[in-house]
């Protein structure tokens, strides 16, 4: 069997194109895999909140108080300097994408607990120039206050306003210093860390533990038998601004 030069060149050219195509498709597929959230991770912390249960005890701020106490959150009366980890927001303000003008009576204008959503696709992490904030393998959007340079890009990126900046030295404004947890300094951003220091000791987040109505449920989304998963199975839940693609991991039962 003889091969003409022309046939040989043609086959060789086509093979080269095919090989190049295969490797680029492979590379593209790989990039896609990396961008997707890691599947099958052992732990993915999340929270399910029942706002109506939260409303049972009127004016209750037990969770907020507990959080502020264990994390040395300063109390600034001036709104411009406010530092917040967990706070209450009227339902309509918290869920701006629920464009329903006829919100159910039970929730209309009622306060809802909001805090860092520990997004699966956190925009704050993308913009941080020093990697002072990053997503841990267990899903917690963590902060390294040692590394924060106070540029506040993360605050601009966060669509939930979950981050606060220390415009002033926070230490004199902390009602009761807890030496077991550090304070922050002027020029540093802070936010909820899902109580990672308590999780490390096998404890639940302070807000969850403090809630007298058990309106906050914390657990592992990757465990199908967990309480959060069973709540998500049994109830219809919403998340804040899901259309932004941040994949928030705080679920609200409505």
């Amino acid at each position, binding site marked *: 069997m003889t091969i003409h030069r022309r046939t040989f060149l043609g086959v060789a050219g086509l093979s080269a194109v095919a090989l190049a195509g295969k490797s680029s498709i492979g590379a593209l597929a790989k990039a896609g895999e990396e961008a997707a959230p890691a599947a099958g991770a052992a732990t993915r912390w999340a929270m399910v909140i029942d706002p109506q249960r939260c409303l049972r005890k009127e004016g209750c701020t037990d969770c907020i108080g507990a959080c502020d106490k264990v994390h040395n959150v300063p109390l600034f009366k001036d709104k411009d300097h406010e530092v917040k980890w967990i706070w209450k927001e009227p339902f309509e303000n918290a869920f701006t994408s629920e464009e329903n003008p006829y919100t159910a009576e039970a929730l209309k204008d009622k306060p809802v607990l909001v805090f860092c959503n520990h997004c699966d696709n956190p925009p704050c992490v993308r913009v941080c120039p020093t990697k002072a904030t990053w997503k841990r393998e267990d899903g917690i959007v963590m902060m*390294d206050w040692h590394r924060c340079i106070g540029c506040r890009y993360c605050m601009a990126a966060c669509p939930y306003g979950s981050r606060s900046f220390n415009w002033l030295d926070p230490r004199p404004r902390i009602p009761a210093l*807890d*030496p077991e947890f*550090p304070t922050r*300094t002027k020029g540093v951003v802070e936010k909820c860390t899902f109580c*990672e220091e308590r999780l*490390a000791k096998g404890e639940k987040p302070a807000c969850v533990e403090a809630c007298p109505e058990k309106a906050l449920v914390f657990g592992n989304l990757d465990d199908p038998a967990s309480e959060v998963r069973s709540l998500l199975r049994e109830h219809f839940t919403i998340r804040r601004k899901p259309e932004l693609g941040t994949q928030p991991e705080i679920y609200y039962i409505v």
Partner: protein
Amino acid sequence: MRDRGLIFSGLVLFLGLITFPVWYNLASGTSSKPPELKLPATEKQCVAPTETMRMSHMEMLITWRDQVVRQNDRTYVAANGKRYDMSLTNTCLKCHDNKAEFCDKCHDYAGVKPYCWDCHIDPKLVQRSKG
């Protein structure tokens, strides 16, 4: 060489002046004395030998910080196998409970100003403000 006397006496005066701080400190007997630190009364065993701690406690603390904050790994295993929680306030200061007489005294002597305490809290400070 008519100015020999002038030149040499000038030189001696000059040397005497620029080495004045050395003579002054030697005479007052302060600089050669290392600070006397107050060691914990209860605990005799630190996480590492004294020499290591004296030379490189700062590197150890930085490593601890990165381990805890960034790797979520909180246990330090000492050379003798003993386990410690990697925490400045909750481990170091539990034994070295007198920060002023231990940390500060040496830092002042060496002229270093670590900013650990801008955020991390000396438990003594809290007790005093409460009491």
